């Protein structure tokens, strides 16, 4: 099937739902600084959710960011992989039982890979992306069977 070639170019898209930007800085370093070049895997940060394949979500879904997240997740085309970056989206992290966050990402969308850490290391992002690519391959096949 074509998915064997298609997985060679996963496009990443970052959604920040109120994170402290620790993980976002790490995400930025994976792409831009020469040391952890994510482009080697064929990845590229895209500007629009409609081009996204692997969605990297950071931040504990705060009350204000909730409906933005719901609307954004609807705009991402189907064979997609959701990666929760950092402990905040996975479980709310340090802010777990605070009044202003709406709980882990699982409530809104079916997450595929969790990369925990506060903040995560660029290498673990590369790990997460590698795992996401593997999952994405099966999703592509399922998408085309359906």
């Amino acid at each position, binding site marked *: 099937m*074509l998915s064997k070639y298609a997985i060679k170019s996963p496009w990443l898209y970052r959604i920040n739902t109120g994170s402290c930007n620790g993980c976002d800085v790490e995400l930025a370093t994976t792409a831009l600084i*020469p040391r952890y070049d994510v482009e080697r895997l064929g990845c*590229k940060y895209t500007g629009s959710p409609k081009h996204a394949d692997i969605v990297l979500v950071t931040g504990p879904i705060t009350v204000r960011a909730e409906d933005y997240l719901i609307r954004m997740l609807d705009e991402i085309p189907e064979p997609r992989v959701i990666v929760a970056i950092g402990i905040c989206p996975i479980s709310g992290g340090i802010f777990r039982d605070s009044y202003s966050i709406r709980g882990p990402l699982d409530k809104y969308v079916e997450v595929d890979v969790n990369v925990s850490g506060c903040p995560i290391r660029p290498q673990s992002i590369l790990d997460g992306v590698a795992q996401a690519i593997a999952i994405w391959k099966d999703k592509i096949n399922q998408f085309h069977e359906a």
Partner: protein
Amino acid sequence: MITLSASSVFAYLLFPGGLFAILFGLILLSVERIAVARFQGRVGPPIYQNIFDILKLRIKEVLIPEDVTNRFMFAIAPVFGFVGMMTAIFILPVSGVYGGTGANSDLIVLVYLMALPAVSHILGGSASGSTFAAISVSREVILMFAYEISFIIVLFTVALEAGAGEGVVFSLKGIVDYQVIHGSFISNFKMIPAFLAFVIFMLATLEVPPFHIAENDGDVMKGYLMEYSGMPLAFFEITHALKLIVLLTVLQVFFMPGIAGYNVFFNLLWFIGKSAVVVIGIALIHASMPSFRVDQAFKFLMTVPILLSLMSLGMVLFL
């Protein structure tokens, strides 16, 4: 009437036209991305990266914004640019390899065909109804309006120089033949400013960082392509690759068509070599230049390239 002979269909679909140009363009785009990465000290993507981008987009789901203003225009927009570029490649002669389509490979037709990708971006962006797209469409129009002047002046300078004083040569084949006999224009001192102006025009048309404004990731993210996904987006990527090839061919037709060897294969290698060198030069500028703001770019484009091209036009006319 239509002379759709087998050779012209072959030329359109396979060799210097469709498949070869698309693949060569995509590879050149990847080469440019690798060169930029290497200039920044990174490894950069594998060379087949852009090809797999297209293949990946093919399998993606196509999203259509529900309050899109005109679905037909939203779907037809990418095809405009694609068709324009395919025709442009078909009529452009590659020295020593492909002779263009004789009478019809004409400069004025080329000018209007090269404006089609910008038109397709504009139509697509404004038909999608998104605000980011609207802002980037207005930027694209301002830029297009600014860099077209220098391109037109360069065009006429080359046409007049190829006419060698007594007339004007509008056919592209004529320009190439003139340079083959009298030495290519790059070596002609009168044409150096025009060459610089054309390079600036190339950077502006290809949206390479000094002019990476309409799709600037900083403020309008993906600009006019914001609402596209799946196959229409793949068409825009293919059009971008074809536009790179068209610009390289036009650069070589205008300024350095020198035929190296005799058989087609050697000329083709010479053509690919020259294109690769130019692409790496573009990558160098890409890696080491920040982007203009729109009004800075507009002022820059309205002064520097126009003066350069007017200088060489003056030299051609009065020297």
